[in-house]
Every structure is written in C-alpha cells, then in structure tokens.
C-alpha cells in the first residue's frame, strides 16, 4: 500500500530528526506525548467517518460536531462533576447530530456535502452563542482542572485513556468491517445499495447506524479536545481538525486501521506545532503564526502528494432510492 509506505517514510524521517530536535530543546518524548494527544480526536473522527463512507455516506460536518460536542461536553462535565460524564455527553451529542445528518441524507435525500456544510456553519454561530449563554464569556471558558480526564503514566509518557480507547476502537472498527457479518453488509451497502435492498436488508438502517456511530466517535473526539487535552474551551476549538480528519479518511482509503496511522502522522505535526510554540529558545525565533500553520501545511502537502485517485465505494455521497 502506497499510503503505508509514505507513512513509514515520514515516521522514519521523524525518528531520524529526533536527536536534532532534542538539541534545539524539543525533547522527542514530549513531542510524542503531544502528538498522541493531537492524534486522538483525529483518529476517533476519522475511524467513524471511514465506516460512514464505507456505507456510502459522507459527513463533512465533523468540524461542526467537534465544536458542538466540545462545548456541550464541558457543560455535561460541569453538571456531572466529571470529565467522563463530559465525554459521554459529547459522544451523545455527536451521535444525535450524526443521526440527524444521516436521516436527512437517507430519507430527505439531501446533498450531503451541503448538509454537512450547513452543520459547520450552524456550529460557527451556535458555539459562540452557547459560550456566552452558558458561561457569559465570549470566546474562552476555563473550567476547573479536576474535570480533566486524568492521564495514565506509561512507558511512552503521560497517555490519556481516551487515546488508548481510540486505538482500540480503530482496531475494533477494522475487525467489524472485515471480519463480521455486519461489516460485510456495511461494505455492500456502500458499493451497491440495490444489492442490499433486493437481498431484503434495510439500506436506511445500515446507513443510519454508521452515521450515528460516526457522529458519536467524532463527538467523543470533540469532547476530548477541552476535557482531555486543552483544559479550556475556546470558540475556534476545532480549528480545522474536522477537515484534517477527513484528510485522514481519504489518505487511509477508508480503512480504519490506516486512518489511525494517518491520524498519528497529522497528530505529530500538530503536536510539533504545539511544542514549538511553548518551547523556550525556539518560540522566540520562529513567529508563532508560522508555527500555527504547520498542521494545515502538512495536510495540504499530504493531500496533494499522496492522494491520487483512490477507489471509493461507488455510491459515496449519493442518496439511494428505488426508482
């Protein structure tokens, strides 16, 4: 697989660069730590979207789900006095939004790209609205530190349990997709919904299922942003990550396990940017603005360099209707 090769090349380059990074004051261990944090929301959303696209739907509203579930997740965490409640709340909101988007796509035969964009635009206004309505702070809300989901000490450094969950979920999704009857049907419905329909299976239910699961995973990732990583809520919290997750999906050719690798790649770029921005001795020399561009430039380069024309399920984004 070409994408795997690319990922390996980049990882090897990163490993080779590690000693150099160390010398300029960027310890590779902390880079990996941040990279894994940054990987988590991307991986969750990308894995869910892989399933969704395998079933023939497309959700470009991941960005909006990230922002909405981050906000609502913090609200749940404060109400339930626990970060885990927040994560659950975020996942639930994501599932709900995913379900609505799925229903509009399946029953309303919506243009899924436009519907997803509508969702993004909605959250662009609704999230700042919520921030002020719920906490009377425009732009930023800092919640008590004890609501953060605690990280686990591992040989790789401080790792969030959500990160481990994301890895397990990616492998689980791979297993479901390729080893079970359900996955068999999901792949069939994306390639040929007519076949699924005449076989007496429900096209609508399979697609609603993947839309909802995909939404829930993105929602979990969104709630993780403030509760597992930043420790605060800002209105631009998703910052293009929803679209980077989409890039992971394309990069991975809709394979959840490969999407995990892609998420790690983009996560490392993101983590690198965050690390550079806070490392003394480096941050003074490189303008902050350029550091902030790194994840987007990396995504742009990868999208342009690696992704040729891949084979996607023939019906992605097209509503199914019996004539």
């Amino acid at each position, binding site marked *: 697989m070409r994408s795997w090769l690319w990922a390996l090349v980049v990882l090897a380059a990163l490993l080779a660069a590690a000693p150099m990074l160390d010398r300029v004051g960027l310890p590779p261990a902390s880079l990996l730590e941040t990279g894994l944090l940054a990987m988590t929301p991307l991986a969750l959303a990308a894995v869910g979207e892989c399933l969704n696209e395998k079933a023939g739907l497309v959700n470009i509203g991941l960005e909006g789900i990230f922002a909405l579930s981050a906000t609502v997740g913090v609200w749940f965490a404060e109400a339930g006095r626990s970060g885990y409640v927040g994560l659950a709340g975020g996942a639930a909101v994501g599932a709900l939004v995913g379900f609505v988007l799925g229903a509009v796509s399946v029953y309303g035969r919506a243009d899924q790209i436009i519907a997803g964009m509508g969702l993004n635009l909605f959250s662009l206004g609704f999230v700042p609205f919520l921030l002020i309505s719920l906490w009377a702070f425009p732009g930023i809300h800092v919640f008590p530190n004890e609501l953060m989901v605690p990280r686990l000490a591992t040989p790789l450094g401080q790792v969030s349990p959500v990160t481990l969950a994301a890895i397990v979920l990616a492998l689980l999704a791979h297993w*479901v997709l390729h080893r079970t009857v359900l996955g068999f049907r999901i792949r069939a419905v994306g390639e040929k919904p007519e076949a699924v329909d005449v076989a007496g299976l429900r096209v609508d239910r399979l697609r609603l299922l993947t839309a909802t699961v995909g939404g829930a995973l993105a929602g979990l990732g969104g709630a993780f942003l403030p509760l597992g990583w930043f420790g605060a809520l800002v209105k631009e919290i998703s910052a293009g990550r929803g679209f980077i997750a989409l890039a992971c999906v394309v990069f991975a050719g809709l394979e959840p396990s490969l999407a995990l690798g892609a998420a790690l790649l983009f996560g490392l770029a993101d983590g690198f940017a965050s690390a550079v921005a806070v490392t003394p001795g480096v941050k003074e020399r490189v303008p902050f603005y350029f550091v902030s561009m790194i994840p987007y430039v990396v995504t742009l380069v990868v999208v342009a360099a690696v992704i040729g024309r891949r084979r996607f399920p023939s019906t992605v984004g097209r509503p199914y209707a019996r004539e």
Partner: protein
Amino acid sequence: MKESAPRVEMRGIHKVYPDGTVALRGVDLRLEPGEVVGLLGENGAGKTTLMKVLSGLLRPTRGEVYVDGRAVQFRDPKDALRFGIGMVHQVFTLVPPFTALQNVLLGQEEAPPLRPLPEDRAREAVGRLMEQTGLSFPLDAPVESLPVGVQQRVEICKVLYRGTSVLILDEPTSALTPVEVDDLFRFLRGLRSQGRSVVLITHKLREILEVTDRVVVLRRGAVVGERPTAGATAEELAQLMVGQVAVRRAVRTPRAAGAPVLQVRQLRVRDDRGGLAVRDVTFEVREGEILGIAGVEGNGQSELVQALTGLRRPEVGEVLVAGAPAPVLDPLTLYRRGLAHVPEDRARFGLALGFDLVENAILSRQRERAFVGFGGRLRGNVIRRYAEDLVQSFQVVAPSLWTPVRSLSGGNQQRLLLGREIRKTPRLIVAMHPTRGLDVASTAYIRDVLVQMREEGKGVLLVSADLDEVLELSDRIGVMYRGELVAVGPAGRMTREKIGLLMGGVRPEEGA
C-alpha cells in the same frame, strides 16, 4: 375460478409514481406452478414495474396480490422472498468487488451481526444448488472480473438460494451471446420441470415463442392480450405489442460506395481498468455506406467509439478521418475534419440535461464562428434562431426553447441531439445505440435520418447491440467479439444466424 388457487395472482394492479407518471392501470396476472409466462411489451409498457410490485420492491397504488390463494402485502423484497418470489433485475444487483459466493450470501448470512461470515457452510450449500440446477460459476472470483453471462448465473443463483419457486427475469438476454441464451433457456425449462414458475420479461418475440408456455402482452400499463404460446404467431404478438404502428423497413437505393471517410488501422485501446478493450482493429467506412458493427455489449465497442471520437486516447494505431491522419485525437479537431458523433449514452455525453434546448443546440458547436461574436460573446439571437430551426426540422416536441432537456422524452432528446450533429454537415457520422430506449415512432424517424445521410453520400458507422437495427440499416456488417473485429462482410452475406454465432465467439467455418 379454477378448483385450485393459482400459485400467484395479481388483481387490478395500479401504480402511479410520486412524480405523477401512471405506470400500471389495472393489470391482472395469473401464474401456475410449472409454467413459463412471457411478459411482452415495449419499453415503458410497465412490464418491469409490474414485476417490481410482485417482488416487493414497489408497492402498488391499488390492487391485490394473492399467493396460493392468500392475500399478501409485501413491504420489501424480503417479504416476497418469504413467499418464494424472487426477481433477477436487468441491471444486476451484484456487489462488484465481492466474490460470487459472498454475493449469494448477502442477506442470507444466517449468523448474528457480530459473528464472522459463515462462508464455508455456504460454500457447500451453494455447491449443492449449483449441481441441482446446472448453473456453474467460480465461487471465489470477484464478480466484477466475470463475464456478463456468468454474472447473470450468479444473480440467478442468488435468488434461487433463497428458496425461490417463482423466478422473475427482467430482459435476461440483452447482454448474452446466442450460445449463452440457449443455456439460459435450457435452464429455465429445467426449472419448469421441477414445478417452479418463471416470468420472462422481454420485448423480443423470438424468445417468447421459443421458451414460454403462455404470453401476456402489456401496452401502456394495461394487458392488451393473453394467450397460450402454442397458438400464437409473431405477427399477431407484434401487432398487440406496438398497437397500430406498421412494421417498416428502411428504403434505400443501391449505390456504389465512394472514397473512404474513415480509415482505422491496427487500433489498440485500453479500458478504464487498463485491460485491452480493442485489439488491433482495422476497418474503413466509405462515403455513402452504412457500416454496422454488431456484438454483445462490453466487447470493446464503447472503447472503440470513444477512441474514434476523441474521448479516449488509443494506445497505438492509426485513424484517418477524410483521408488525413488525425494527429491530435480531440473531439473538436475531429469535428472540424467532418465527424459527427451520436454517443452511446445521450444523457452522459451528448447532452447537458440541466441546460435548455438552446444551450444544448450549441453543445460542442460553442466555438463556431457563427455563434461567437466579439470578445467571445455568444450571439444570442443567431443561436436562438438556429435552435428554433433545429426543433422544427427534426420534429422535437418541447414546451419551449427554454425548457431544460431533462424534461423532454428520450425520443425528443435524441432528435435534438441527432439534429445538432447533422447540422454540423459532417462527412462521417458515428452513431452508437442511436435508438436505445426510444419509442417506435422516434426509432423509425432516427433510422430514417441515418439512411438519408447515406443517400446523401455521407459515411455512417453504426454500432449497436440491437441486431435487428444493424441488419435493417447496414450495407456492410462487422461483428466485435472480445475487442476484435472478427468479421466484416456485405450485409447480404451476413445472415442473422451467422452473426449470432460470431457474437458468441464461434467462427462459422470452424465451429458450426
């Protein structure tokens, strides 16, 4: 009523589509066990709709369905399958990258959702079924790699695997070679002898006469005739099927063909997946003749036509249009050399369905001097007058010039397209499936126009899967099989039987 209830009975079936189209107006149909019923009718007569109702894919607006005397209502195909009714659709419902076995298994996994796919168990069951019915195909190849005829066997097996005793086949022979058709019919007779019922949807009279026991003729959503096949004649059935339109033949004057307008030498073209679709084909088309190329679809005809018309880059070979080589095979260069193209799929290549008639009238002519004024401005008035003239000359029926062509009937779309191409005053016309899916009147009209072009001394390359069309129109006939032009000869020496064998890959001198 007979003493025992029929296997299936449909009574007073009406179907109105959401867009208001009335497809069925009170159809009755009976099916007995152990009979093959032919459902005969033109395109759009409602045959497929009726059977989609019976197989649970569509719900009737009105009317009842009885199975073994019991009233039933199918909400989806699974319900119909439960009563032993299964349908093989004209457009296959196979998942292309899945293996044949997986396709048979889909929906019949008989395992909980989160368990592995029980492929080994199914392999035995499918194997037994294949033995029983005489269907055979490789189980573990992705179906997209199988020939169409074999895919159809997979499709039939898929339906039978669900314990079907009423098998519905929608135009099953349209993509088959004559040899494959014989195999299929033998298989259907086998089913009949096992006491199962078969419905064969077709518009081909020969098939009805060859394999059915009883024939039901539909026209415009209603049954216009029903009789045992044994006493029926082809002429009588044709009359029922088309109504009052007389069956006609093209009139032409014998004439000697002129100079070649298209010369193709050793042309080799690959398909989208990189496979060889056209293998070193050589032929020519002369002024004042129609060269018809017959063949089962998917034998390289699409790729050949696309290469000749600049839509696909050939790998090697030489193409001369009007005697001069076409160095850059792009559509506009070829057009300037005198090529007109009626593409195989008008909605895909030849028209922009969302554009109105005026805009479609200049599609591919949009750069012509006559239509473009100073600074690249389109000359609206000139274009409108030209479109008006097209609509009149080619009898296009449309509410207005500003209607999107999407809302025109297929026949009117094709008249507009053909008119536009002919107004290019070409020396060579390449037409593929020019009458596919059209009503009788439009079909006749378009065939007339093609013959008229020949009379005017233009060269016509006609590529069609409709053998009757090729036989009716051509001066010379060639057959494509697996990317090769296996034979070209004067129409007089190419009989239907000979072409049929060639289409199936049998060379008469060796084979028969």
